């Protein structure tokens, strides 16, 4: 698989579905590094940066946000058809994220709006995966913009970028951060996908799991550790449900 032609600049499009647009902004926070990006890539579609946005053909489509209504679903399919490589950008796009919390509450729209509304909401807020094939899951709430740079560079080299598959603990150790568990603070690091550089633990704030659940996670042991450090069962369930979308943790038989 080669995402991009070497001679011409790859055509890149940024799109956003249902989200806070924080990941969208994260790209802009790259600051001076944006010059490198603009030199190597042609940004053809970006609602926040450009007035003229045409839905042409793209080499790389970067889609932020979850699919929460029929318009989202149609748009996502259209973009997928026109793109060679699709990045699900941010935890909303990869897992449903914060908007997906409404999946756990029935009659959500009536509760909030009091009557049916025009948006044609789907039964559930979905990650992009449930509607189109995704080539790369860039997790994070928000994303780590350095990861975006690395993925774009890999695509320029004709490489298939690998998604991080190790816990946040590895990021903490690399950055020389003292483990929060040692100070009695329960942290979601061991069960969360790493690659963020652990900015929250660096500020002595426990990882909240915003990068989604790590397939190798030992949920049972994490649950026990959180109980041991003073969290109630309800609080732990809330934490596990927020980004990881784990419905019933409990004591899981360790692998």
């Amino acid at each position: 698989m080669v995402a991009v032609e070497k001679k011409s600049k790859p055509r890149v499009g940024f799109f956003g579905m249902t989200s806070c647009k924080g990941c969208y902004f994260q790209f802009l926070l790259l600051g001076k590094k944006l010059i490198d990006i603009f030199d190597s890539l042609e940004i053809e579609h970006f609602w926040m940066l450009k007035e003229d946005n045409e839905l042409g053909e793209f080499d790389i489509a970067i889609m932020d946000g979850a699919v929460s209504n029929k318009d989202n679903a149609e748009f996502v399919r259209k973009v997928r058809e026109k793109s060679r490589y699709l990045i699900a950008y941010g935890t909303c796009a990869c897992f449903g994220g914060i908007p997906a919390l409404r999946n756990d509450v029935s009659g959500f729209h009536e509760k909030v709006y009091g009557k049916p509304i025009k948006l044609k909401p789907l039964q559930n807020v979905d990650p992009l995966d449930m509607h189109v094939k995704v080539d790369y899951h860039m997790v994070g709430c928000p994303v780590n913009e350095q990861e975006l740079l690395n993925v774009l560079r890999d695509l320029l080299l004709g490489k298939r970028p690998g998604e991080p598959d190790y816990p946040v603990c590895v990021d903490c150790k690399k950055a020389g951060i003292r483990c929060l568990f040692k100070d009695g603070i329960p942290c979601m690091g061991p069960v969360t996908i790493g690659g963020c550089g652990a900015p929250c633990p660096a500020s002595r704030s426990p990882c909240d799991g915003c990068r989604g659940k790590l397939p190798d996670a030992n949920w049972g042991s994490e649950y026990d550790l959180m109980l041991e450090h003073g969290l109630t069962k309800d609080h732990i369930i809330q934490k596990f449900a927020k980004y990881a979308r784990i419905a019933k943790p409990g004591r899981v038989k360790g692998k």
Partner: protein
Amino acid sequence: MGGPISSKYYLISKKDLQRLLDSLSKKMPLFAPVKHGKDFNFKRLESGDKLDIAGYTNTEYPPRGMFLPEGEAVLEYNKGKFSENFFKGKAAVFGIRPCDVHALLVLDRVMLGHDHFESHYKRRRENTLVFPLVCGTPGENCFCDSMLTRNLVESFDLLFTDIGHHYHVEPGSKAGLEIIAANKGLFQESVHKAAIVEVPCKKKLDTANLPGILAKARASGVWDEVAKQCVSCASCTFSCPTCYCFSLVHDSGIADPEHVKVIRELDYCMLLRYSRVAGGLVFREPRKERVQQFFYHKLAYGPENEGRFHCVGCGRCITECMAHIDITDVIGRIRDEHDKRK
């Protein structure tokens, strides 16, 4: 590095040690334990930085970083040419504990033995002065007594022992003697060998016949119990002074993707990615096998390949494990099971 090289001993006052470190730090990068919050870690001491090791047992992370630094660019590729980049000059590390020096001896056997040597480790090891500091009271999780790593007879340049107002100094190499000669005013001669009260370690690990016992214990239920607790965070492998496994990763910037640095990054056998090949197959997938790999490498494969245990009893893996897995306890349970079967 060397063997017992002199029958003379020396004394240096704590004030004069500061002067010695100041003088050394002007000539080369000098690393010493520096306190940050609740932990000590090896950091560079610039000239004028005061050495403050009140309450120092051992560093949170091992001194591996001075010999196998994380993220070292070992190779570079630019405009069609490869060039291998090496550490230049000299360095020194003060305050490294005897168990950690034994860890360096283990790494020496791995990196410099077996037909090939790892050229970057070799360069750093040959050019770094080692000034260990003997332990009086061990830390809570130490078990160096069991692993026979409490004492050092070789492989240091100057061995320091805190005897109150002074440090006792034992030279261990030509380079050590040269430093004493170059700083004559700071050292006084002494005829006595260092004598301090050695408080025994609280934890114990019985190593008798351990590789043989482990060879028969692969199917033990103890490993299943450990795997249930383990969250595969890799803290143990990260904090172990004899863990050395690494990956070679190609890195380049988006502005010039073809100017490549090949980075040597630490990798951890606790993680799935460690044994994943192209195509996605993971050779060591079950958590139990990855847990076994750590223990077996330190206590069975290590002695089989390098002739000594890789575990030096520093206790860091016990301190760092948030899931309360304790190597002395695990091996104790394996041994109990083995003894019951006899």
